[in-house]
């Protein structure tokens, strides 16, 4: 199958974003090579205000490289990175952004409040401390030294550091790793609240449920290239097949011989027949015509996980 080149700008155009505003952050035709490995291959992506963009991909796909380029931590070997139209490697360009990165440790001797105050001092109009504490649920932890925090508490504190400047664009690199489910849901709620305020969020994650729940646009990357892009629903619908589940009197052989049926099996959970097909509507018409006793049918969209796996599977 030929690789379709998805250009972030055109997809964003379909979503009506480009017409309304300029991108707040952009990677233009960026290529990054580490030795023989190609981390990003003529990669382009634009982030628009109010979006929550999720970058999904297998390990080594180039996600962290993309984040590093946005933040000015690495220089593009070719192509360009920009934040609000400026070079992210210049310190003053980063005055309206915040980042949560995967860090192995934080200076353990300093208290949470001291870290928060220091990061807030980098910005002209930082987030009010009370709001920051509330967003990251740190009220009980302010006076505690960072070395004394549990894993989940550390993640919350790091999230607060990302929010400290009341950023217009938030970069989150695998933000909920190590969080319990309550903390994860709280973070999601904060991200949604920020997005509602018109802030932009760029998030990398390998939790597909998180991408599904949180993002307004998903970009799937593999081997440095964009493989698919769209809203979570579009992604789920674009890929592969749907599943038709039903109770039918037709035999499994008869079902298998029907046009459009890719596979047929008995679903062990409820005894219904599960039929895999690309065109569920056609199949349903055929089934309803041939079997007047057909009932309990549903058409199931593939989960994002299945879509993701089929999109990023290594080519045989």
């Amino acid at each position: 199958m030929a690789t379709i080149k998805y250009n972030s700008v055109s997809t964003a155009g379909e979503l009506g974003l480009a017409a309304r505003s300029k991108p707040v952050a952009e990677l233009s035709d960026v290529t990054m090579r580490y030795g023989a490995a190609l981390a990003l291959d003529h990669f382009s992506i634009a982030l628009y205000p109010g979006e929550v963009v999720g970058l999904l991909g297998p390990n080594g796909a180039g996600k962290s490289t993309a984040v590093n380029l946005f933040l000015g931590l690495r220089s593009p070997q070719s192509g360009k990175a920009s934040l609000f139209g400026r070079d992210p490697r210049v310190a003053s360009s980063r005055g309206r952004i915040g980042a949560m990165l995967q860090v192995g440790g934080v200076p353990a001797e300093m208290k949470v409040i001291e870290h928060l105050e220091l990061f807030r001092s980098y910005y002209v109009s930082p987030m009010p401390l009370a709001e920051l504490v509330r967003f990251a649920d740190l009220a009980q932890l302010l006076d505690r030294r960072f070395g004394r925090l549990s894993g989940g508490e550390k993640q919350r504190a790091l999230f607060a550091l990302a929010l400290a400047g009341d950023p217009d664009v938030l970069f989150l690199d695998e933000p909920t790793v190590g969080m319990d489910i309550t903390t994860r849901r709280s973070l999601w709620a904060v991200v949604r609240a920020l997005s509602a305020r018109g802030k932009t969020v760029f998030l990398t994650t390998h939790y597909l449920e998180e991408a599904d729940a949180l993002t307004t646009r998903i970009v799937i990357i593999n081997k440095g290239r964009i493989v698919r892009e769209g809203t979570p629903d579009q992604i789920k619908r674009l890929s592969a097949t749907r599943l038709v589940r039903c109770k039918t009197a037709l035999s499994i052989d008869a079902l298998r011989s029907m046009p459009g049926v890719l596979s047929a099996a008995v679903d062990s959970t409820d005894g219904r027949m599960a039929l895999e097909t690309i065109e569920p509507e056609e199949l349903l018409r055929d089934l309803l015509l041939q079997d007047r006793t057909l009932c309990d049918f549903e058409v199931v969209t593939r989960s994002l996980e299945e879509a993701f796996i089929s999109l990023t599977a290594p080519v045989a």
Partner: protein
Amino acid sequence: MSDATSAIDYPLYEGVSTTIMLAKETMHEFVKLLRRRQFAIATKLMPVTLYAVFGASNHATGQHGVQMARYMLAGYASFGVIAASLYGIGLNLAMERAQNWIDLKRSSPLPFSAYLLAKAITATAFGALTVLLLQLVAVTYGHVYLTGQEAIEMIGVSLAGSVVFGAMGILIALVVPSNATHSVFNFIHLPMAFLSGLWVPLGSLPHWVQVTAPYLPAYHLAQIMLGILGYAQPGSMGFHWLYLGVFGGVLLFLSRIALRVTNK
């Protein structure tokens, strides 16, 4: 009907003044190192107690009328300055690099130069503090006669020494793999101190040590300190300053290259 999110222009963002950011960052670094037990031991406790035991308590007078307690003050002061810089800038930076904390700082509006400078200023301050503590021990416990001028000059030299060994610390932090930095710093610091005659006067050390010592920057720092106290080996002070200047310059130059490479 215009949408609320019509074309965003990019107003020039006026950031927080770099000086203010540097000041706050430096305060933060200072408190951090003050609380870091290992740092306190390596840079204050160790030089001061070793000097108190081996130096200040030594009321003997050596060859040529050298007052031992006063002589050894120079060596231990150099030792303290080097420790403060190697661990205060070098190991500090290496740890934050290993943890990727450095990337979080680099993604913030804090200029990277301010990040490094805050560490350098803090380490320099701790170096000067160590020299001051040693001087106090010398004057009180060691009954060493030290003029105000000599004391101030020693502190001044400690500031210059911090630049050279700070650059060394930065270079090692950037070039050596993270898990090896602690060993490398120890390996450089302690043997170099010994081989430069910081603890035991060179005259009492084997011939090969006396010959190799002048190649070590710690030797030159110690000679300058000794010069203030009137105990330097014969030779011009200018030569020692030149050596340190060139050595420091080369290290700073290499550090700049290392920074550029690691930030790719």
